[in-house]
């Protein structure tokens, strides 16, 4: 979360660390694959196992993605519902 805000510049462009970007991408990939495999939304533990990281880290990445999402469309509260809209 903080990691993202740190990269907001005066011009409003958002830069986030390459690592966090990759982690967010991996999280979405893993989520989609698991969803496809089990036919329903994966559990936090399943996602953590798939990504080979602790649950706390998965939560962190979800927060970062969340924050990024809010920044991209501050006036669209619907955007935060991305995870449930599948």
């Amino acid at each position, binding site marked *: 979360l903080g990691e993202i805000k740190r990269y907001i510049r005066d011009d409003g462009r958002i830069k986030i660390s390459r690592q966090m970007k990759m982690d967010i991408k991996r999280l979405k990939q893993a989520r989609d694959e698991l969803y496809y495999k089990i036919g329903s939304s994966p559990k936090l533990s399943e996602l953590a196992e798939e990504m080979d990281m602790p649950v706390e880290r998965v*939560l962190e990445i979800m*927060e970062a993605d969340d924050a990024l999402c809010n920044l991209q469309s501050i006036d669209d509260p619907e955007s935060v*519902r991305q995870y449930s809209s599948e």
Partner: protein
Amino acid sequence: MVNKIKIEFLSLSVNESFARTAVAGFFSELDPTIEEIAEIKTSVSEAVSNAIIHGYKNQPTGIVTLECSYDEERKITISVEDTGVGIEDIEKAREPLFTTGSPEERAGMGFTVMESFTDHVEVTSNLGEGTRVLMIKKLDAGYEL
């Protein structure tokens, strides 16, 4: 009541995101699905932003009280309370699209979202005293470790 927490925070809009994070962290122990986490976070956001925007009229000096619990049956409760202006007509406030805010800014869908993302929403409020929103949700019953 297997586990419970109580959080008090200032009515600052930055604390909406704190509340989401804290609640997700608390319920992560129950190993919810990604979808359940998103539903919980969104519901908390709606209730907390209501307390800040409507209850305290965006004054940053109010205290929002957030209480969460879960039990052996994976039934979770989330209560969001403010001591702000209160709601005159609760039934009306809960109607979809109803808002006392400016229609350009507010969608009037907060309560509708909470209702659709949880199993039960209870609102108690008194004018000049404040508002409490209690949400109850049963996590996936077929869960096994």
